[in-house]
């Protein structure tokens, strides 16, 4: 009766409200009698606080209250917790310095919160914040992560500014393989620090009701339940049952809205104290210094090969900059989500990776789209392409010689790939990119004074985070399952509640497609609800491309329960045996007969149980499910980037970008393509335009959108994208996840293309015109 909805290009249910200005983002929420908060932030990267004088601010027009670290300490407001414990090479726990909500005697990065001013209007709060006088004794700043361990300590608990030294892999076996190698390729590079810059700045609006002795926090978050859990259990010591967290429409996240931030805590705490709502919305300037940044690795990487180009071993040493404090998931990004991906798509038999994670006087660093996996892909794919050039081999051929072809495949870095077909995406990408005619295009470019280059990246990522027991054994302090609930209404329409969160991904559409397809209903009969802890049973939220693989599967499990109960009801109504009932696209049928009941009839019977087996079955049709995955999923793909570099200016133009991804089963190709486009633009941004820069004193030089260049429309091309499907073997939808792929694969593809165009071994990211021009002239 209905065409399949899984796999269909269905326009989005959420678009109408966004296109008409009816979206409700956190800053759009206006609560009666709300007050406004402004934060006093440190202008110094590293300083002792001698004194904070707030008297003038307290007397300023409209000011309701001013709080400093002293008031929060007196109220026993705890520090922010880190959600992942890394154990170092000596078996010791990582160094976990306190992360105060408001500074306690010392500031450790520019933008750290020292005080909060709460006033009748946002303008009054800002004006009064200017009147807070802070007497700082400045200290030398630690900015360069490579010099951190030899610098004076930022935290007492970490005398060498080192959070941990961590390693994965068999070092002895790797060293032995290198000793026998016919060729070794070595690269030293920086994976540049990025500022996420979701276009909606962070915002929080908290209210407290004395009547209910309960709080409601509206917050721009990717995971409202996690935010609530962290805030209540670890920081404010409140019962979760008394706190409702709502993440309404959220204007992009990219990782930066996963974390519990001090501002969220302060407005919640103050809302009770003042007995009125307290609202805060970041300026973009505040976002730059207070949203967790991404990447920032300094890496030395080596690949050992035999004379035929077979990979024998890989050895990687990385210094990861964690910034001034441990953000919520900071510790697992340059370890668990990085080193485990270093096998890439290849059969490299032994791999060793050592990571030194350091504190510096910079904004905390945490997950940003891809989170560890872009850094791993960059290591692998820059090494592979460079090795091919050094050995005078075709970069495609060297990859083919080393592809994993038999699954499941156990890598030497802990992961077990369930399925994949790397040749298929590479072949398709090469065809779409018309690689065979590249040479003539290169010659044509040269006639116009442009160097043309072509680069590949064959990435793999681990998504569907995560099997809780595996994550737990690696140090996770949380479960990583997902929850879903399917509520069938008496008239047969369905509301589905999911613990994942959509901040652009289009869950309201793609999740509805899954539900409508599975139940044989129309899209109009299914509503998806997310982002409110008072409505949704639980959830771990959206990050790591986990929504459809983990959240979608939880919904499927709940749907299976609905159908199972529906069969019991139908069997009663049809006077048949339950074993004989089949469910097929909206109809419960007695097998081999024309006797049937529609889905809506069964739903109605469940809620109006006049003719119903009440002795054996509860009325109602409402089921929930928790799903904990048995493995990660492994999206993979092949990207081909073609660039032209201006011979005179060094300016790089991406003239073509082809991406063929294997995301397993695709629910909505239109949405999936959109996710790839966006990821590619962020990956291209990392490669060409985005570089977060600090000066030696720890001042952020790229602190606005006028200084930090996120790609504009003219910086990116129309993308050629396609997919190949090898279904995931361990979830019922066969899905793998698609949200991060573009950002993971693109940087290596772009930099492989630029180095190909210039004929140089390496160019630093971001490859701005100036950087490329200098590289050309150094080469000459």
């Amino acid at each position, binding site marked *: 009766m209905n065409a399949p909805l899984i796999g269909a290009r269905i326009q989005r249910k959420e678009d109408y409200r966004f*296109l*008409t200005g009816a979206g409700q983002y956190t800053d759009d929420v206006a609560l009666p009698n709300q007050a406004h908060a402004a934060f006093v932030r440190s202008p110094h990267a590293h300083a002792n606080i001698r004194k904070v004088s707030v008297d003038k601010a307290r007397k300023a027009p409209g000011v309701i209250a001013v709080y400093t670290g002293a008031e929060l300490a007196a109220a026993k407001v705890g520090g922010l917790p880190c959600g992942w414990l890394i154990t170092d090479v000596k078996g010791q726990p990582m160094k976990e310095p306190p992360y105060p909500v408001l500074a306690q005697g010392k500031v450790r990065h520019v933008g750290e919160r020292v005080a909060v001013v709460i006033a009748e209007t946002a303008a009054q709060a800002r004006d009064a914040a200017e009147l807070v006088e802070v007497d700082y004794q400045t200290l030398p700043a630690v900015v360069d992560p490579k010099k951190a361990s030899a610098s004076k300590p930022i935290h007492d608990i970490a005398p060498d500014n080192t959070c941990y030294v961590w390693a994965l892999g068999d070092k002895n076996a790797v060293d032995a393989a290198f000793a026998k190698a016919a060729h070794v390729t070595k690269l030293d590079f920086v994976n540049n620090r990025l500022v996420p810059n979701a276009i909606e700045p962070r915002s929080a609006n908290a209210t407290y009701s004395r009547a209910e002795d309960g709080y409601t926090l509206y917050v721009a978050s990717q995971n409202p339940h996690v935010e609530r859990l962290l805030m209540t259990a670890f920081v404010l010591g409140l019962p979760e049952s008394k706190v409702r967290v709502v993440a309404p429409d959220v204007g992009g996240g990219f990782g930066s809205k996963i974390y519990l931030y001090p501002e969220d805590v302060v407005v919640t705490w103050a809302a009770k104290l003042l007995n009125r709502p307290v609202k805060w919305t970041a300026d*973009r300037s505040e976002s730059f210094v207070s949203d967790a940044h991404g990447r920032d690795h300094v890496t030395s990487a080596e690949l050992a090969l035999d004379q035929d180009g077979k990979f024998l071993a890989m050895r990687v040493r990385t210094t990861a900059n964690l910034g001034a404090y441990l953000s919520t998931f900071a510790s697992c990004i340059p370890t668990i989500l990085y080193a485990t991906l270093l096998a890439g798509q290849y059969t490299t038999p032994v791999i060793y990776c050592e990571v030194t994670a350091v504190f510096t006087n910079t904004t905390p660093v945490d997950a940003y789209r891809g989170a560890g996996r872009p850094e791993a892909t960059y290591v692998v794919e820059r090494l592979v392409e460079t090795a091919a050039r050094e050995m005078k081999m075709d970069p495609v051929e060297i990859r083919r010689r080393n592809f994993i072809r038999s699954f499941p495949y156990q890598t030497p870095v802990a992961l077990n790939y369930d399925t994949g077909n790397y040749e298929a995406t590479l072949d398709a990408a090469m065809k779409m990119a018309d690689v065979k005619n590249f040479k003539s295009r290169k010659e044509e470019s040269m006639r116009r004074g442009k160097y043309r280059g072509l680069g590949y990246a064959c990435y793999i990522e681990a998504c569907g985070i995560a099997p809780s027991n595996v994550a737990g054994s690696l140090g996770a302090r949380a479960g990583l399952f997902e929850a879903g609930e399917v509520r069938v209404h008496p008239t047969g329409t369905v509301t589905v509640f999911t613990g994942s969160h959509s901040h652009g991904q289009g869950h309201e559409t793609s999740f509805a497609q899954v539900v409508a397809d599975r139940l044989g209903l129309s899209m109009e009969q299914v509503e998806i609800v997310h982002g409110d802890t008072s409505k949704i049973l639980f959830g771990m939220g959206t990050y790591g491309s986990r929504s459809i693989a983990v959240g979608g599967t939880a919904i499927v499990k709940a749907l299976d329960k609905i159908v199972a109960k529906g069969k019991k009801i139908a069997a009663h109504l049809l006077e048949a045996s339950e074993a004989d009932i089949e469910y097929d696209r909206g109809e419960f049928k007695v097998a081999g007969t024309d006797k049937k009941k529609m889905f809506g009839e069964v739903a109605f019977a469940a809620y109006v149980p006049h003719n119903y087996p009440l002795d054996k079955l509860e009325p109602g049709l409402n089921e929930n499910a928790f799903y904990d995955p048995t493995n990660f999923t492994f999206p993979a793909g092949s990207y081909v980037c073609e660039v032209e570099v201006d011979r005179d200016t060094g300016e790089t133009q991406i003239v073509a970008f082809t991406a063929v991804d294997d995301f397993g089963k695709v629910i909505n190709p239109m949405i999936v393509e959109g996710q790839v486009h966006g990821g590619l633009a962020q990956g291209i941004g990392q490669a060409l335009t985005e570089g977060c820069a600090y000066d030696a004193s720890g001042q952020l030089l790229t602190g606005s959108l006028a200084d930090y260049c996120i790609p504009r429309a003219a910086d990116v091309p129309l993308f050629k994208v396609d997919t190949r499907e090898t279904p995931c073997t361990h979830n019922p939808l066969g899905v793998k996840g698609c949200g991060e792929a573009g950002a993971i694969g693109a940087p290596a593809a772009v930099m492989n293309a630029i180095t190909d165009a210039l004929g140089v071994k390496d160019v630093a990211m971001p490859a701005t015109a100036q950087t490329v021009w200098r590289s050309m002239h150094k080469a000459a």
Partner: protein
Amino acid sequence: MTVKVSMKVNGKPVSADVEARTLLVTFIRENLRLTGTHVGCDTAQCGACTVHMNGRAIKSCSIVAMQAEGADILTIEGVAKPDGTLHPMQAAFKENHGLQCGFCTPGMVMNALDFAKSHPSPSEQEVRESLEGNLCRCTGYHNIVKSIMAGARAMAASKG
């Protein structure tokens, strides 16, 4: 200092007493509670606050409300037909998946509406150049470019 500002917004006369420094975008969002116009930055880079003033696209974060005294302002809330039917440019964004999180979208649409008036059948390159002042972090611009090309043609066609 408080001043009285009066203007027409989405066809309706409005006025309010505001602080002289009140930005037009603040007036629109806070006084009028028209929250479809967004604020994404503080350096006039992102374009999320784009509205029309007297028929031209402007960044409402870059002028104070007083400067719009007597002006005719159109915000995203005034673009669809009164019965709720989407304007052809809005429909083109939906059909071409030209939005994801939706935060930059109102600014994109308002800018595109102005651009399309003078570019009934724009090239890809012309559209990309027209987006110099509008940032999107979700879409990679691919489908926004397609949306605006399609929307401009649809607008030209609907004029007959």
